[in-house]
């Protein structure tokens, strides 16, 4: 046997260990075929097209059966929680939006709800701001679910689902760009409200997009719901029942696929969700197919909510400010799009530089110093596309957070990998992980 740098072997107390890191597949097969053992440890990822980001799966195989499945994470750790301790409360939004990058508006809203709880201004957040938050979150839920279906479909070989998913997501991102100026990482939701009102003509555009989406989302539905090839890959795969979910702290579509209609928007409403009409989608099958169906039909429910939001935004009773009245908290700058990009609106500059000394002082104090938050701790949770997203904040009374912790659903739910995959075929691991829909930015933070 000649030495092969890609498929070396060494003797251990456990027997011969073959390490395969690449190279010619025929050589690898010949090498492994020379032993009777079929016991293989496969290191899948962190750079692998089917692991949904930089997730490393360590699979112990017996033939094609997975005996043990373990996750290795941390490849995308960015220290956001630590960094947020060195910026003021408003700047925190800019950090947390980058955690779970597929659902930025949920991160921002969870954070802001917790800050508002600490400040004791939850009731003072203007109704219009809450409607805008709900609308952005629901649009975000659609775009996030679309990516889940797109990448999940691609990983199982349904490339059309990928094309459809990303095509529809563009429509949603166009609205994000229209409203916030950015397609992702918008830092749009701020403590006390939102950064700015929606621009003129936005509701019309959103209406158009909603009806467009209603039409287009049917494509993915028609393509995959009841499709026998899709069913063969997903039906009965990645089973996790209610007892398993509660023990592992699993929330979101995985929990709802066990038939339990647990959705924080209904059970513990925030941002006025109790005033919207929508249904909680559940499935009974506890499997990948059930979770897939939930995502498909939740997008329809989100469109319903977005329609109600748009109606409210156009109605006279929801006109008004989008930031708390309290000048000691509300961000003073009114942004507008000028010929040189997004910046302070000319009117605002005119006011602080020309007419009102107090406005200038407030602007200066808030922008340089920020506001102080009374000491204490608060936990605020929202129903993100992946489950309960919780923000645990601690203040020491200063202008910066003392501690920011995010209970990210991806991080928690990824623990279910072993329960869903062990004992199944290696191909089912891909389907099971795709149905968890982990976003590594949120997992590693």
């Amino acid at each position, binding site marked *: 046997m000649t030495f092969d740098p890609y498929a070396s072997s060494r003797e251990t107390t456990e027997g011969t260990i073959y390490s395969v890191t690449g190279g010619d597949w025929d050589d690898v097969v010949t090498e492994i075929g020379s032993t009777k053992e079929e016991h293989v440890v496969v290191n899948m990822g962190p750079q692998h097209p089917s692991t949904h980001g930089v997730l490393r799966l360590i699979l112990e195989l017996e033939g094609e059966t997975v005996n043990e499945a373990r996750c290795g*994470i*941390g490849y995308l*750790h960015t*220290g956001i*929680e*630590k*960094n947020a*301790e*060195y*910026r*003021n409360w408003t700047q925190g939004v800019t950090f947390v939006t980058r955690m779970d990058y597929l659902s930025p508006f949920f991160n921002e809203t969870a954070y802001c709800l917790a800050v508002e*709880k*600490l400040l*004791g201004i939850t009731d003072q957040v203007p109704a219009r701001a809450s409607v805008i938050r709900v609308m952005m979150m629901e649009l975000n839920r659609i775009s996030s679910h679309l990516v889940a279906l797109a990448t999940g479909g691609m990983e199982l070989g349904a490339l059309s689902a990928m094309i459809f998913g990303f095509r529809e997501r563009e429509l949603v991102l166009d609205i994000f760009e229209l409203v916030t100026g950015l397609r992702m990482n918008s830092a749009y939701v701020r403590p006390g409200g939102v950064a700015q009102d929606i621009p003129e003509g936005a509701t019309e555009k959103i209406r158009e997009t909603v009806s467009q989406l209603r039409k287009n989302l049917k494509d993915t539905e028609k393509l995959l719901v009841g499709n026998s090839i899709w069913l063969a890959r997903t039906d009965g795969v990645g089973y996790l029942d209610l007892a398993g979910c*509660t*023990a*592992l*702290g*699993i*929330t979101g579509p995985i929990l709802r696929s066990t038939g*339990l209609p*647990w959705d924080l928007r209904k*059970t*513990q409403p925030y941002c006025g969700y109790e005033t919207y009409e929508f249904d909680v989608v559940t499935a009974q099958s506890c499997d990948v197919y059930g979770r897939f169906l939930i995502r498909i039909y939740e997008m329809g429910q989100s469109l319903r909510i977005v329609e109600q939001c748009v109606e409210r935004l156009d109605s006279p009773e929801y006109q008004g400010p989008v930031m708390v009245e309290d000048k000691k908290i509300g961000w003073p700058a009114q942004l507008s799009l000028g010929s040189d990009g997004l910046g302070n609106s000319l009117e605002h500059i005119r006011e602080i530089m020309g007419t009102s000394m107090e406005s200038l002082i407030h602007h200066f104090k808030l922008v*340089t*110093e*920020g506001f102080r938050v*009374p*000491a*204490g*701790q*608060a*936990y605020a*949770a929202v129903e993100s596309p992946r489950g*309960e997203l*919780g923000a*645990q904040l*601690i203040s*020491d*009374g*200063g*202008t*910066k957070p*003392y*501690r920011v*912790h995010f*209970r990210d659903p991806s*991080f*928690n739910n*990824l*623990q279910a990998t072993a329960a869903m995959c062990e004992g199944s075929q290696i191909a089912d691991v891909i389907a099971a992980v795709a149905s968890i829909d982990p976003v590594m930015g949120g997992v*590693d*933070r």
Partner: protein
Amino acid sequence: MTQQGMFGAPGSGDTSGYGGLVHSNATPGSSSRPFGSYFDDVVDSLERAYPAFSDAIEKIVIDRGELTIHIRASRLQEVAKILRDEASLRFEMCLGVSGAHYPAETGRELHAIFPLLSLTHNRRIRLEVSIPDANPHLPSVVSIWAGNNWHERETFDMFGIIFDGHPGLTRILMPDDWAGHPQRKDYALGGIPVEYKGATVPPPSERRAYR
């Protein structure tokens, strides 16, 4: 918690006149009955079901509409088990654990915070445990809430809290050979000064800033 100075870089000759200012921010203290909302019900049920209640519970804090039960570290597992199993409590989900480091609280520097959720009763409470930095051991609750596995690993990784009885307490986010626990207050943020148009911008932790 106390703060010194309104702003300025620590250790520098701050000439603003605010440098000597000391002001304390009291965190909300112990609450007394009635607690309001469902909190009385939760505390009563726990007291009924748990004989060593008075020994295990250090204080009960109601703040901003949230109930926090401070528990002696040695009793954590017992309390956790009752909170999960007792029919009138039924906190069947633990939403993880997060740490907090208070270097000024001698003997109770490290805190572990457990948010609990009851699907049955649709309630939330929070458990808080304080332990000394010199002996940072805490019983693991993984045997009670299996989903706390990774959360405890993260809290160990970031704060150095050792969860006794955890099935495999290793680092999870930082590399295995990393030295130190990054989210502790005595662990510097790091960063390098950046030069911009001839001037130098210090790293965020060393900039002059409001507190």
